[in-house]
């Protein structure tokens, strides 16, 4: 664990301040990163995409998790299987499946044309839409499971009591149910956001060069561009942003507990 986890990360950080092609100061790679016209944009785009995906996951995941928590035992099993199976199946396979579905000659476009809804294929991938669809699908389980865990702890009597006291369903939801599930919302959002920051495969296959995210940029810098100093600095920044998001968002252990792998 020390050799293959701590040492690799330390090595990356060490390289980022010693492989100097952009100046003589130890921080010159980082200066070059932020001075460039491209990389800060990539960083912002990465954070923006992660934020967008988090929002969509929350909007889609909340009602789904609610249904899971209130469904019968058998229905819950079905819904849970629909979340767990994709969660653990290969991201590469799923992303590739999306390319089959979404390409110009793909299934979705075929259906839409046959229904007469569109005349010629709509571009559903190689753009932000494709990246958004792919990433949302991969990350949705990480939102649903913490939400589900928090909703299961809510005593339905509270909502009933609010209704009995004259609150409209909307008001009962906003004032009672939502605050009670806030923990799940926060943990799920943080988890999705943090994992989204490091995404590589999905944007590489479903996006265009205009959608490049930080992880892809790191690989490009390391491979074709042969600039290990800047690549490792970018990696250091990605790591830093991730840690920052975690520290701001809460303690790491709380996350782990919410992964749905176990419930205490």
């Amino acid at each position, binding site marked *: *664990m020390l*050799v*293959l*986890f701590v*040492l*690799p*990360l*330390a*090595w*990356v950080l060490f*390289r980022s301040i010693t492989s100097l092609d952009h100046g003589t100061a130890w921080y010159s790679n980082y200066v070059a990163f932020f001075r460039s016209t491209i990389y800060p944009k990539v960083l912002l785009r990465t954070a923006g995409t992660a934020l967008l995906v988090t929002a969509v996951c929350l909007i*889609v995941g909340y*009602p*789904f998790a*609610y*249904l899971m928590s209130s469904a019968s035992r058998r229905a*819950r*099993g079905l819904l*849970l299987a*629909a979340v*767990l*199976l*994709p969660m*653990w*199946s*290969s991201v*590469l*396979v*799923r*992303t*590739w*499946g*999306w390319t*089959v*579905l979404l390409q110009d000659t*793909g*299934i979705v476009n075929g259906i839409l044309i046959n229904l007469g809804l569109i005349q010629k294929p709509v571009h559903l991938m190689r753009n932000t839409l494709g990246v958004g669809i792919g990433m949302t*699908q991969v990350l*949705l389980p990480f939102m649903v499971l913490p939400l589900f865990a928090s909703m299961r702890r809510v005593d339905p009597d509270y909502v009933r009591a609010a209704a009995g006291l004259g609150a409209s369903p909307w008001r009962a939801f906003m004032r009672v149910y939502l605050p009670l599930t806030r923990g799940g919302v926060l943990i799920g959002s943080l988890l999705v956001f943090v994992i989204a920051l*490091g995404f*590589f*495969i999905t944007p590489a*296959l479903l996006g265009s060069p205009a959608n490049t995210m930080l*992880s892809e940029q*790191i690989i490009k810098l*390391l491979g074709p561009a042969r600039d290990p100093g800047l690549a*490792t600095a970018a*990696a250091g920044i*990605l790591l830093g942003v*991730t840690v920052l998001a*975690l520290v701001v968002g809460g*303690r*790491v*252990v709380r*996350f*782990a507990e919410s*992964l749905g*792998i*176990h419930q*205490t």
Partner: protein
Amino acid sequence: MGRVLLWGLAGLVIAFLVLPSLVVVPISFSSGQTLRFPPPGFSLKWYGAFFDPGGEWLRAALSSLQVAFGAAAVSTLLGTLAAFGLVRGRFPGRRTLLAFFVAPLIVPVVVLAIGMFFVVLRVRLGVLGSAIPLIGAHAVLGIPLVVLNVAASLARVDADLEFAASGLGGGRWQVFQRVTLPLIAPGVMAGALLSFVTSWDEVVIAIFLTTPYFRTLPVIMWGDVKFSLEPTIAVVAAILMLMTTAAVVAFVVVRRREVLR
């Protein structure tokens, strides 16, 4: 009314979650030369291409299995020991240590992959292009899953049982082996399964730690996905998925009491 709407939405979400994986299955049985959907006819020829005894696919599948079994074994052993220390031990900094063991789940995998590449290259931790570095690297990804699962099981085991067993004259190892281990077996099993699946599907680290002479299935698939339009990719995808599905079903069976409570 609201209920119907909710189920309608859930149906869409389920389709959204499941379709991208399912679509590969019919294409893998295509008789055509391309990834056209619906396939023009049924054939097993792409499976034949995959299972060609001299071909690269079968070799890669065996490498994948070797790495996944190795990684699952290593992470299960180390993860179980770590969970045992974390739950039963009484020392300061346990929370920090747990955070450390769980951290590989959240660190961006590209950053980890680059670092591992540097380290393996320099430290000579096994030859690059053999199974060993990749087994070690994937074990790191698997350890958090084992730790979480085993720790959850251990927390439910009554420590008094262990105490009683040692009071009756059981040695430390004997108590662990005869009392604790059977009780936490579902957690150990669940952790092993998840860690197997994680290694079996892993691409990014594998890209960095493999060579043309030793490649796993996802690595070859990654190389082909951008250029090749042959349905063999669909066969690979289907086989990768079949394995994960089997493991996840086994996981749910092992853990059904917690999962479906």
